[in-house]
């Protein structure tokens, strides 16, 4: 079955919602797909404990509710070429065609390996937030939050709201950098007020800078952690360790479509012009995949992409100043939460780096590219397809991660045999 849209948006977080609504406001038939059951992405993820409250702005929920934008829930892209996507949902496979494809696949957390990081009870920082909102039990649990960036504060606030006892927040950046970051926030008033709100919610929780989790200890799950901070090393008992070292762009889909990437620190992001056009005609990108800039940047870029996709030139122009202002925030964020070399060297030779195939760090010694390491050690060959270990090894300076080949996610055999998609690919619908 093939479905056709004027504009197709992949990812229903802030950037994707904004893009879909902008394009729909000009009369385009817009499809918005997401792997999750609800719109909102990670930032506006629905909280099952607060079933009546939605964090998604009303303008966006209304567009979905009134079907100005067609939301394709629990729909995942399995293979793609410019102009056509092979997707899988709970019912089966479909081929989706479009004139304009807007990629808004967001970011994931950078997880850096350290001894004990594979123990149950060790999660990402944003990971803990996502789990808490999907009903993961936290009441009464002793939780330590660690890693880097403003996300740690949001994770701690979420954990506390869900009944956890937050023992402390451990930021790897130095105190003077965090102070300078905070002092510069006046230029982005919504961020400043968010920071103040979080600070109030976190009253009584200790926030330590230059503080790093060295190891997690436990038998079949985490029981304690060892911290290294300004006052030396110490062990703390806990039930959950939530640790994330910032975010990195999910560029697998744009890369597979042939979009040019550029390096943004250790990790690649999608290169776009000021209309959010990628290097591939008819393919736009918006939000965190164009560089980690947060929710407000994503909303602006999404709107620009949505307008650009339907040729609304004046609307694109009108948003340029807001776009630049948000990009300045992205630079501010990156400058002050740069990773200390210490956190890139936490793994010891026996630490498993590839969690899917249980490949220890020492097995990767001597390899200078992801492909040869994968062929010889199976590192990155498992179900996550190197999304975790590949990004970690990239950050650690071992080698850039390899590109992903379809299927982008484990898919049903019937999906891979979808004849419509093969026909679309071969019929010249697809021209790159």
């Amino acid at each position, binding site marked *: 079955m093939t479905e056709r849209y004027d504009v197709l948006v992949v990812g229903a977080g802030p950037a994707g919602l904004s893009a879909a609504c902008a394009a729909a406001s000009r009369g385009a038939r817009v499809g918005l797909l997401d*792997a*999750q*059951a609800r719109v909102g992405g*990670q930032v506006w993820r*629905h909280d*099952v*404990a*607060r*079933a*009546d409250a939605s964090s998604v702005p009303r303008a966006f929920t209304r567009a979905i509710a009134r079907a100005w934008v067609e939301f394709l829930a*629990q729909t995942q892209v399995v293979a793609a070429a410019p102009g056509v996507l092979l997707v899988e949902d709970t019912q089966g496979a479909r081929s989706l065609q479009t004139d304009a494809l807007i990629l808004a696949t967001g970011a*994931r*957390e950078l*997880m850096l390996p350290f001894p004990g990081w*594979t123990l*149950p*009870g*060790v*999660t*990402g920082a*944003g*990971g*803990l*937030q*996502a*789990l808490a909102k*999907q*009903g*993961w*039990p936290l009441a009464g649990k002793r939780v330590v939050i660690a890693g880097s960036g403003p996300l740690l504060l949001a994770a701690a606030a979420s954990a506390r709201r869900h009944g956890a006892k937050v023992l402390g927040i451990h930021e790897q950046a130095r105190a003077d950098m965090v102070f300078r970051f905070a002092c510069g926030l006046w230029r982005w008033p919504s961020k400043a007020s968010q920071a103040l709100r979080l600070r109030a919610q976190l009253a009584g929780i200790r926030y330590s800078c230059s503080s790093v989790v060295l190891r997690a200890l436990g038998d*079949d*799950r985490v029981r304690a952690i060892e911290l290294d901070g300004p006052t030396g090393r110490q062990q703390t008992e806990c039930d959950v360790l939530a640790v994330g070292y910032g975010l990195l762009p999910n560029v697998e889909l744009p890369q597979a479509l042939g979009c040019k990437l550029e390096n943004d620190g250790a990790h690649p992001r999608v290169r776009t012009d000021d209309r959010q056009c990628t290097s591939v005609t008819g393919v736009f990108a918006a939000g965190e995949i164009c560089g980690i800039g947060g929710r407000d940047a994503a909303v602006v870029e999404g709107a620009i992409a949505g307008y650009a996709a339907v040729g609304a030139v004046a609307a694109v122009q009108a948003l340029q100043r807001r776009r630049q202002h948000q990009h300045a925030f992205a630079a501010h964020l990156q400058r002050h939460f740069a990773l200390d070399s210490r956190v890139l060297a936490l793994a010891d030779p026996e630490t498993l780096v590839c*969690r*899917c*195939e*249980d490949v220890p760090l020492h097995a990767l010694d001597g390899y200078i590219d992801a492909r040869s390491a994968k062929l010889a050690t199976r590192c990155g060959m*498992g*179900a*996550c397809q190197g*999304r*975790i270990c590949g990004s970690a090894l990239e950050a650690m300076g071992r080698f850039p991660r390899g590109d992903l080949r379809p299927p982008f996610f*484990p898919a049903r055999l019937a999906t891979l045999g979808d004849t419509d998609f093969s026909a679309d690919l071969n019929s010249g619908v697809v021209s790159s």
Partner: protein
Amino acid sequence: MSGERVSVQLNGIAVEIVSGSSVAAAIASLGMLSRRSVSGQWRAPLCGMGVCFECRVCIDGVAQQRACMVQVREGMQVRTDD
């Protein structure tokens, strides 16, 4: 807490959980873990958003489903590794 509750079976044990919760949440509510790694280590959710695949379980007979990406449904049968 609000909302209706649904009942699912985890390794044959019935558990009630708030509608809209993920299968990962239901598993954790019983103190269970999701899978054993290729070298036999127990694993549980890491990323919470469908990236890491650590929470893979068998749902209604379909193996390798990410528990953090699937919402509970009444009568759902979930099997973790054992």
